[in-house]
């Protein structure tokens, strides 16, 4: 029988950081401009894929970068920052190539249907929205919002991975990496799914009215990630 109370008291900081990481991921997903199936037909502003899929793609790329960095340094700040950078690169590259396709392949200018003027560039948006659509492409405000989302998601994922790797355990280094990385991926997915109920398929970024709903998702993520954190820390700590 493992010493549940002992493991949890020894690793209470890890549980707190994992939970914080999960909440960060949940918040980050609201920033990512996704348009789902309508955006794939250039009928909605944002990237033409699902919320969970894009957030997971970006966050897991961040996790790969954070894992590489953790092999080289012990600095927590550096590992977490590398996670954010990896995720930002993935989402930034995806969005710029998405812009190529919308502009050169489909022939529509980036335009938001949720605001009349881009909050960052102050450009008029509504007259550039083609008839019968809810906007298309990635105007500057959505692009910047996506980058912020990628950064927060990568940060959260890296924080979870770093915390799981810091749990005191009897595992060998290889087994610990395997277990910690799989738990990090799992916790990432849990928190990428929860906000999609708020988003309901499409969101343009932080200027979208749906963005205001984020506190509910973050609260739900707090509960879900806390349970995940307890399970993962007990598993790794008890082995």
């Amino acid at each position: 029988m493992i010493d549940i109370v002992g493991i949890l008291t020894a690793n209470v900081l890890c549980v707190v950081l994992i939970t914080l990481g999960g909440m960060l991921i949940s918040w980050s997903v609201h920033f990512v401009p996704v348009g789902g199936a309508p955006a794939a037909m250039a009928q909605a502003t944002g990237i033409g894929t699902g919320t969970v899929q894009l957030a997971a793609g970006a966050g897991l790329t961040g996790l790969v970068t954070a894992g590489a960095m953790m092999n080289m340094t012990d600095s927590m700040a550096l590992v977490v920052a590398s996670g954010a950078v990896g995720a930002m690169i993935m989402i930034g590259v995806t969005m710029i190539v998405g812009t190529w396709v919308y502009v050169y392949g489909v022939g529509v200018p980036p335009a938001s249907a949720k605001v009349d003027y881009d909050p960052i560039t102050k450009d008029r948006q509504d007259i550039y929205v083609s008839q019968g659509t809810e906007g298309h492409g990635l105007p500057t405000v959505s692009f910047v919002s996506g980058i912020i989302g990628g950064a927060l998601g990568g940060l959260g994922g890296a924080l979870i991975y770093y915390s799981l790797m810091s749990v005191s355990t009897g595992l060998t280094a290889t087994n610990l990496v395997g277990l910690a990385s799989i738990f990090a991926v799992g916790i990432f997915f849990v928190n990428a799914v929860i906000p999609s109920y708020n988003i309901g398929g499409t969101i343009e970024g932080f200027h979208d009215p749906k963005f205001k709903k984020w506190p509910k998702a973050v609260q739900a993520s707090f509960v879900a990630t806390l349970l995940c954190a307890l399970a993962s820390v007990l598993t790794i700590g008890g082995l």
Partner: protein
Amino acid sequence: MEPLIGMGVLALMGAAATVAGASEDLESDVGSQSNPNSQVQLAPQMMYPHRIYNKAISGEPPSNALMCAIGGAVTSVLMTAFSMSILFAISIGALVAAVVHGSYCVTAYMGRTASQKRYKQPIYLDIIRSHVPVMIGYSFITTFCIIAIAYMMTAILDHPFPLTLLAFIWGITIGAIGSSTGDVHYGAEREFQNVEFGSGLNAANSGNIVRRAESGLRNGIDNSWFCAKFGGPVTGIAFGMTVFLSGWVTTVFDASISTAVGWMSVVAGVGIILLLILWNRRIEVSARNAYGPYKEEDDEEVAA
């Protein structure tokens, strides 16, 4: 590790990723996977039966992650338990994954199309025979390249994650990129070549996809022929850039030398991001100038 070897491996990984990205997107175009499939699925219900392959096994990221994880697991087992050479291990791993994918392709087409019997949509057996080998071929190339990337990361760049997990993660990422970039070219342009280029796609056109090809009736292979000119290659560039740039910042600025050098990698990454934001802004401005507004400005100001 020698910085030059690191850069060489990174370049090879970038090249493999570019090939993988292109083949991933073309595979999804042949089979009509991911979001544009909603129109292929909808068309018979709007009285437009067609000969386009209709499969959406799942979202592209989980589907590719499954393929790559199967391939990665088989490769790992063959390498460790059977001491097989890496080239054969990756080939056999990718082959197993591609065949599993092929079986999903068949069941997805059969199931989806059979459910549309009431809309008079036939199941074409010749479409299955001609399209499934193409999809198996593309998915073999994708899986082969991804496992090769994962192997190079673990064996040469000393990445701590296990090979199978890396293959899984890159599978998720390639699917996310493919469905965000190349699929838009298929969904917004190829499926709706019957509306004027650049006019936008009115939601009222939903389901009215182009069903006649350059010659005969259009099928999935015709779609991949078209998308191979733009959507596929740009997906490849996107995934290649992601793999290359995210590895480049940590390889060039090696944090094992000192923490300060590690922080330079973060600065370099942020610099790349700023360049991308500016680039997007330039394209946005040039597109607005080139295409112009859809509505008269005065009308909207009165309405506003």
